[in-house]
């Protein structure tokens, strides 16, 4: 059994479990599920080394898990518990696991892109190995700071992999009123870096193009690389449900579901994996629910009030 498919199924089942539990109102923070977009997280992270840093956005569960972030700490974070990845202070939009160099996720659109570039700068200045990967959506390239970060990464030939998950929507606003008709990857080319466009729904394609990109970056003077993946979110922007038909065309969703990234998994494989993953998820939720809430003191003890 291919570990890529196992990982995608695991992310899918975690997200579905969150969606199931969410209406109980015990996870009291916004959640942005990545159902439909799992192949990009898994394919990209499959070609990374331990020292590589990964950054993400509000839709970070898949990236965090594909990178090897602790499932229990993630679920606990959603429940606002002290055992959460950010001690319950961050919630779903601020996952981190420094153990696996998943160095942070944040919901201010494009805000983690320059941070990823800065980590790459520090790696170069400190003469340390490792590249920076930042995942972001199609709307991020509308933000000035994304261009500023790309300009600098290209200027200094920094080891950065820019991963744009183009799921065609910012919340429910389609691309048309937001961007001109041109490939997003062309923006990166304009900044003087290599850029690729690829199918984000086939994990083997994602892995191949990512490996090619990462090899180019690791060759030293290769400089940063940008990949635009075509993908689609199967559930609503924020929350556990599907979008209402008025928000996105149901036919469009149906067409993309035919390109479900886990479609390559046979029913037999699916059935074989499911119980193992389900057990792990049950344990993660139990761990989260049984964990204590953080005390207010842990918050006030942080350097937050200065």
């Amino acid at each position, binding site marked *: 059994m291919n570990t890529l498919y196992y990982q995608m199924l695991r992310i899918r089942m975690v997200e579905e479990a969150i969606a199931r539990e969410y209406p109980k109102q015990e996870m009291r923070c916004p959640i942005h599920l990545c159902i439909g977009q799992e192949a990009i997280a898994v394919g990209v992270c499959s070609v990374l080394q331990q020292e590589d840093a990964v950054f993400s956005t509000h839709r970070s569960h898949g990236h965090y898990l594909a990178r090897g972030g602790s499932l229990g700490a993630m679920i606990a974070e959603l429940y606002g518990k002290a055992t959460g990845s950010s001690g319950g202070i961050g919630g779903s939009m601020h996952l981190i696991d420094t153990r696996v160099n998943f160095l942070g996720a944040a919901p201010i659109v494009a805000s983690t892109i*320059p941070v990823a570039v800065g980590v790459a700068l520090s790696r170069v200045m400190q003469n340390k190995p490792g590249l920076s990967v930042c995942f972001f959506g199609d709307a991020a390239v509308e933000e000035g700071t994304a261009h500023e970060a790309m300009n600098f990464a290209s200027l200094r030939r920094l080891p950065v992999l820019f991963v744009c998950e183009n799921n065609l929507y910012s919340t429910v606003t389609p691309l048309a009123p937001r961007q001109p008709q041109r490939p997003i990857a062309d923006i990166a080319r304009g900044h003087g870096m290599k850029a690729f466009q690829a199918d984000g729904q086939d994990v083997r394609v994602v892995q191949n193009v990512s490996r090619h990109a990462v090899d180019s970056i690791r060759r030293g003077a290769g400089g940063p690389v940008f990949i635009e993946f075509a993908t689609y979110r199967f559930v609503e922007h924020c929350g556990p449900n599907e979008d209402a038909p008025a928000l996105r065309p149901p036919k469009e969703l149906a067409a993309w579901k035919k390109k479900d990234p886990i479609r390559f998994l046979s029913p037999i494989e699916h059935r074989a994996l499911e119980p193992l993953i389900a057990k792990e998820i049950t344990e993660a939720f139990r761990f989260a629910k049984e964990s204590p809430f953080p005390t207010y003191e842990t918050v006030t003890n942080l350097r937050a009030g200065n």
Partner: protein
Amino acid sequence: MKRLRTYAQAINEAQEIAMRRDPSVFVIGEGVPDPKGIFGTTVGLAAKFPGRVMDMPVAESGMTGICVGAAIAGMRPIMVHARMDFTIYALDAIINTAAKWHFMFGGKQNVPMVIRMIIGRGWGPGPQHSQALQALYAHIPGLSVVMPATPHDAKGMLLSGVTDDHPVIFIEHRWLHGIAGPVPEPFYTIPIGKARVAKKGTDVTIVSASYMTVEAMRVSPWLTRAGVSAEIVDLRSIRPLDVQTILASVGKTRRLIVADTGWKSFGIGAEIITRIAEAGIPLDRPPVRIALPDMLTPTSHALAAEYYPTSVDIARNALILCDKKKTDVQKAIRAYAATLTGSSDQPDPTFTGPF
């Protein structure tokens, strides 16, 4: 014989010491390595520390985010902005990213970075090259905001900032750069969050920061001769605010002037007067805020001369607070103003522009 250095030299020296002590420190900003070196504060550093004193794209927002990234990965950036106005492009990176990164990830990572911001006055910087936005940054939990007034404190507080594990906004007034004062040669730090009683007194407390401390100190001997003993509390640090030192002084004098380089409404003066009210310290006279009027900054030096408060305003208000007769005050102030030499838009006669 005390070792004298200008404020600009003190900052230059602090950065040199910081980079010598710690290879993770670097200096970055628009024009940092150029021959003028940010009013002299970075002159010569690029040659001493190859690769660590960098120019940057004109991209204040992205570059601030990049410095945050460098900071969480073990570097200690000192960012430099020749005008505080330019940092408004970077508000998201400063407020949403730098100030919150440590907190929102439960303390897993630190953001040790200093952001130097220069504010100004005179020689026509106008509405977009002069703003003193300390109140804006001081509103944000997660940031420290300092405004040293002397070369001694500038060096010590910059070194405090560089060794701090969290972001520090370091605000320099352009008119301080040329002022000399005693600066010890070795490494030393001045703690962030501690005010300094710059002059002891009994009749009125003048709480000031940055260049307004210079204005207060300038008028202080004259006030003494006029029969007013002023105590000058130089804040040095805006956030955290050393409330104890302020309360102790005002509790003694029961008269208060706050002199700030920023705008009056919702500013530093408002915060300090509120702290005194909350502490229940009775004042013998209503407190006075000396600050920029609530209007934007004009360029023409004819207008700017009226716009900026000076030691004359401090003198007038101190006399009034201490119950000097109105006619005497008018006469005395005319006499004091006549003693001031130089032009209202030059820090000193050696300053001849262009910026």
